[in-house]
């Protein structure tokens, strides 16, 4: 047993050291910075204690970005759940071409995010986008609309684009949960006269609980983290409507050069996410069956 302990840690330690060094050292630096008043990188500032933290909560920008992040997470959760379940339940059936589709549905996830941005900038372009001309052709729109021109439209478009990227990946994970469900339960329920809506509600959904728990936790944190899609399409605009916390941190540090403020934001954000994770795990963790 003792030999196992030492050997086990030997196998794990290279990775653990790598990860903790790259996460803990920066967090320490960020915390230190948040207590000072440093503006441009490389300069030193004076010690201000918790002043940065107190100021932060009074800033409308911070409140606005936090709300945007909240809407962003909720919007993405709804869209991605819908898309991912549609894909997973569809691929779970037998049809010609199923294998090819299951393999390639993940295409939107394996290409660089910048390419995702290029695709949707072209398709949603107000002057020559194919979506605009199709919507005009079938009579939904009278004239071309700018999908990123008003705050609401920009926000919704970004949520849909991000969901387009992530849903196929999530669908494959849901599919793995579906594969683990005992087929006999469906056959038995059919004998009892259950239709497929009832099957979904009373067999499929409850059996996916543990997969959905992981997706709920990891998915929320991952969507919170999205930066490049928003930054490259709207830069947080129009009028800060799409500035989520990650964009605010980036802006504060690298376009406004207020390093201490950005560090404070990072620390507060980590704390909020940690709080969310703990609450989520405490309240939603499925009971172990085995």
């Amino acid at each position: 047993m003792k030999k196992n302990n030492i050997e086990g840690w030997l196998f794990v330690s290279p990775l653990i050291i790598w990860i903790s060094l790259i996460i803990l050292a920066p967090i320490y630096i960020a915390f230190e910075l948040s207590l000072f008043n440093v503006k441009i990188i490389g300069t030193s500032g004076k010690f201000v204690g918790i002043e940065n933290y107190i100021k932060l909560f009074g800033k409308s920008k911070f409140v606005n970005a936090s709300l945007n992040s909240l809407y962003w997470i909720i919007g993405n959760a709804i869209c991605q759940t819908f898309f991912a379940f549609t894909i997973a339940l569809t691929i779970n059936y037998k049809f010609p071409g199923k294998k090819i589709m299951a393999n390639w549905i993940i295409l939107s996830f394996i290409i660089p995010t910048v390419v995702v941005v290029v695709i949707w900038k072209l398709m949603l372009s107000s002057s020559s986008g194919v979506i605009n001309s199709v919507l005009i052709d079938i009579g939904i729109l009278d004239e071309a609309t700018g999908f990123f021109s008003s705050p609401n439209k920009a926000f919704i478009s970004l949520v849909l684009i991000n969901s387009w990227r992530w849903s196929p990946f999530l669908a494959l994970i849901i599919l793995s949960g579906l594969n683990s469900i005992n087929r006999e339960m469906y056959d038995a329920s059919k004998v009892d006269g259950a239709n497929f809506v009832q099957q979904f509600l009373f067999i499929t959904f409850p059996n996916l609980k543990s997969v959905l728990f992981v997706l709920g936790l990891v998915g929320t944190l991952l969507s919170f983290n999205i930066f490049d899609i928003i930054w490259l399409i709207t830069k947080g605009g129009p009028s800060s409507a799409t500035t989520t916390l990650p964009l605010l941190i980036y802006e504060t540090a690298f376009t406004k050069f207020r390093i201490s403020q950005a560090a404070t934001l990072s620390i507060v954000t980590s704390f909020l996410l940690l709080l969310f994770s703990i609450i989520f795990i405490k309240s939603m963790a499925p009971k172990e069956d085995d």
Partner: protein
Amino acid sequence: MIKENNIKLIFLSLSLLLIILIFFFPFFWIITSSFKSPEEIIATSTTIIPRSFTLEHYNKILFNSDFFIYLKNSLIVSFSSMIISIILSVSAAYGLHKLKFYGNKFVEYSLLVTYAFPGVILLVPIYLLFAKVNLLNSYFALIIVNVLFATPFAVWMLKAFFKLIPDEIEEAAYIDGASRYIVISKIIVPLATPGIASVSIFCFIISWTEYLFASILISGDDLKTLPVGLAGIVGQYQIDWGFLLSGAVLASLPVILLFVFIGKYFVSGLTEGAVK
């Protein structure tokens, strides 16, 4: 019964159509558009079947831009990140799976939390840390970060693959006098090849698509990666669409090629046990 089957069939066809339209058509669209004349790309009337065919955009990006420099940088960073990630995560996954050491559950949960750890929070402090130790503007800066983002999920997937290898094979080898090293290199790694292949793809993709850190940690033009190079064109006021589209297609090509050969391992790895 027949009625219900019909409803199912209609639902299935509808959702298939929807999936193809939403998730596959955009790829058809940008690939065909990258061969269209500049006038047709920005034309207001849309034609599904292209009217023009030109190679001028590809010509321009291949022979009249920094494409190959960016490609080289992306390849170096992605391959190195992938190899380091695989070595670290095979070792860690084996330790977690086989050697039930004290604290293994804690390590496992910490890895899951790390997987979802928002990178943006680390952006500013990592920038400062790397500036202090003179790592800015180096491949290694990007490799360090990519390994951090790729390994937690890689360990998670690999553990599931190791579980599929029967314990008896390993025990038989020990009885024959094989050392731990021999067992891992001659038995575990060969038997887990599909798993290692799919995890490699995952690590490669993570590094290949990374934009945020690459855009901040690298400022020299000669070290920029493809996503950062492409983003430079996206940000221009007057977008040269043909140029941008051909660049987007070319930047996706390597991951797609990789996926052609080992993609099925990746997908079956994800759907047949990675989450258990």
